[in-house]
């Protein structure tokens, strides 16, 4: 056995013995992908605590850098020009978006990023399909199935996310848009997509089939998100997040790339967990969010019956007087906080109250806002310590000992009707704000929340309504408090 033979057998042992085509370099590249995957997992693990989270995110990004660098030395790459142009253009846009974005606009940015990931998967799988048929080699069954899955999930993610982005940024109406016979249309489209996938597997050389599949999936993505209204957005965003991961994993099967498969499935799992948490927080099944529509029921009490003569409106001065006598105040923010961008005023109010030796905490409902954790990010931006942000179970045990609850732009998540047996929000876990001594509700009007039902909380004896824009109302309270002290 000469030296070359020995080397050859060593490389073969390092590489995959089944394929026999893997050389030493390929093995090294795959090991590097493994390192990247471990870094991704460590990154996710870092997110288990706010203090370790910055480092976790760093580890994740180092993992990505390693993955990109080892890909660049791949022997299949013969021309770097277009890669560099793509990296430069994409990198600049990414930096610009990340630096410029307002924290209140985070949901639409995440929606947009989701879509781009899905779109990239569609194109990579398409490219792989073209390449596989060029040499006249018959592509394997695995490649065809994976390519179809990648195109299907990727296109649904891309277009679904773009619609979600439009809704969240106000470019499309955020209320539910309902087409007649939409379920039928969706079923027909889904069947058509499956038919196309089968055709791709049977005849890989016909590229047109792939693009038709992508087209159908795109329409499906649009139609799936269009009927979903504003307050259900946290579920949709989480689900699309999961899809973007699954699309990447499918692309990993197309390219036989373990790095893609591991990273993609991690993200897929993450999105699924968030989707489940959001559904539980609304006491609705995923199918109900996607296919059902919330609406007031026949025979339910109308807004007039509930509100007539019972709603008490208040002023900033009166609220300030009530607050002065309080020992414990809980602030419950909702989407209205994001709309009025009043997180800094909330912080000022908290500081004022704490200077008066009043205990202040925040009640965060899991689906408050338009994406998971939306409120937490806004309050963190205003330097409110995360220890003060309490989740549903924790804060609900304290409302009985709370003097004043200030509700800013929240409605359905504080509606006591959720405790009833029937109704559109029956069984949804809510913040038990009605157990506190006084409720101050800052809201622009008595208009119903997303569930479309009146809120008996607003008519309770212990509730005072402070009508107006969140920021203005908070400023009134702050001014009145400052004058009094």
């Amino acid at each position, binding site marked *: 056995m000469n030296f070359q033979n020995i080397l050859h057998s060593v490389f073969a042992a390092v590489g*995959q013995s089944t*394929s026999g085509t893997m050389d030493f370099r390929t093995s090294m590249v795959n090991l590097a992908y493994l390192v990247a995957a471990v870094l991704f*997992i460590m990154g*996710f693990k870092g*997110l288990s605590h*706010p*203090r370790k*989270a*910055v480092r976790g*995110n760093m580890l994740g990004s180092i993992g*990505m850098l390693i*993955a*990109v660098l080892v890909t660049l030395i791949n022997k299949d790459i013969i*021309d770097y020009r*277009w*890669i560099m142009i*793509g990296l430069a253009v*994409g*990198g600049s846009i*990414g930096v610009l978006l*990340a630096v410029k974005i307002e924290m209140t606009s*985070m949901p639409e*940015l*995440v929606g947009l*990023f989701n879509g*781009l*990931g899905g779109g*990239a998967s569609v*194109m*990579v799988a*398409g*490219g792989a399909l*073209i*390449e596989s048929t060029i040499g006249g080699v018959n592509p394997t069954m695995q490649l065809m199935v994976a390519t179809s899955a990648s195109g299907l999930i990727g296109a649904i993610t891309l277009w679904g996310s773009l619609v979600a982005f439009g809704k969240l940024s106000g470019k499309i109406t955020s209320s539910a848009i309902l087409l007649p016979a939409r379920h039928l249309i969706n079923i027909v489209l889904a069947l058509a997509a499956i038919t196309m996938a089968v055709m791709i597997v049977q005849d890989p050389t016909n590229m047109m089939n792939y693009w038709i599949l992508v087209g159908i999936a795109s329409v499906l993505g649009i139609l799936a998100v269009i009927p979903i209204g504003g307050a259900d957005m946290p579920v949709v965003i989480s689900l699309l*997040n999961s899809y*973007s991961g699954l699309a*990447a994993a499918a*692309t990993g*099967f197309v*390219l036989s790339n*373990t790095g*893609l*498969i*591991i990273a993609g499935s*991690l*993200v897929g*799992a993450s999105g699924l*967990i*968030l989707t489940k948490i959001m559904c539980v927080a609304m006491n609705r099944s995923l199918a109900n969010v996607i296919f059902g529509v919330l609406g007031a029921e026949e025979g339910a009490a109308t807004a007039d019956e509930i509100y007539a003569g019972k709603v008490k409106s208040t002023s900033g001065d009166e609220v300030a007087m009530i607050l002065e006598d309080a020992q414990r105040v809980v602030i419950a923010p909702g989407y209205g906080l994001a709309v009025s961008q009043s997180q800094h005023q909330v912080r000022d109010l908290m500081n004022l109250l704490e200077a008066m030796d009043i205990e202040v905490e925040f009640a*965060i409902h899991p689906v408050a806002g338009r*994406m998971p954790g*939306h409120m*937490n*990010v806004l309050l*963190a*931006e205003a*330097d409110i310590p*995360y*220890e003060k*942000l309490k989740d549903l179970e924790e804060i609900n045990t304290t409302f009985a000992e709370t003097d004043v609850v200030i509700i800013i732009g929240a409605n359905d998540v504080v509606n006591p009707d959720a405790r009833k047996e029937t109704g559109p929000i029956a069984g949804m876990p809510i913040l038990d704000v009605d157990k506190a001594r006084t409720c101050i509700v800052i809201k622009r009007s008595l208009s119903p929340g997303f569930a479309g039902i009146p809120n008996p909380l607003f008519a309770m004896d212990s509730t005072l309504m402070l009508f107006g824009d969140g920021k203005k109302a908070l400023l009134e309270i702050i001014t009145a408090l400052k004058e009094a002290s």
Partner: protein
Amino acid sequence: MLDIVTLITIFVLAIYVGFEVITKVPPTLHTPLMSGSNAISGVTIIGAILSAGSHQDPTLTTWLGVTAVIFATINVVGGFMVTHRMLKMFSKGKKR
């Protein structure tokens, strides 16, 4: 090409690891979790790079690849940076 069974094994195990690790993320960090995982799903950039660099004279594959590189890079760079921005706010809140 790797054995399909090997790939499926990796896929299933990675999903389990994901479930285990991500269940431990507190609700307060759910938005950074989304944007961070978003950045990681931009890992398609690997495939995009291979696609964009596979030909000396640009073909349809090259163009698909370049567009995919742009999309995925926005996703990766923007995702990690905006996550970093958010997480810095959380750790800043701690010191007060």
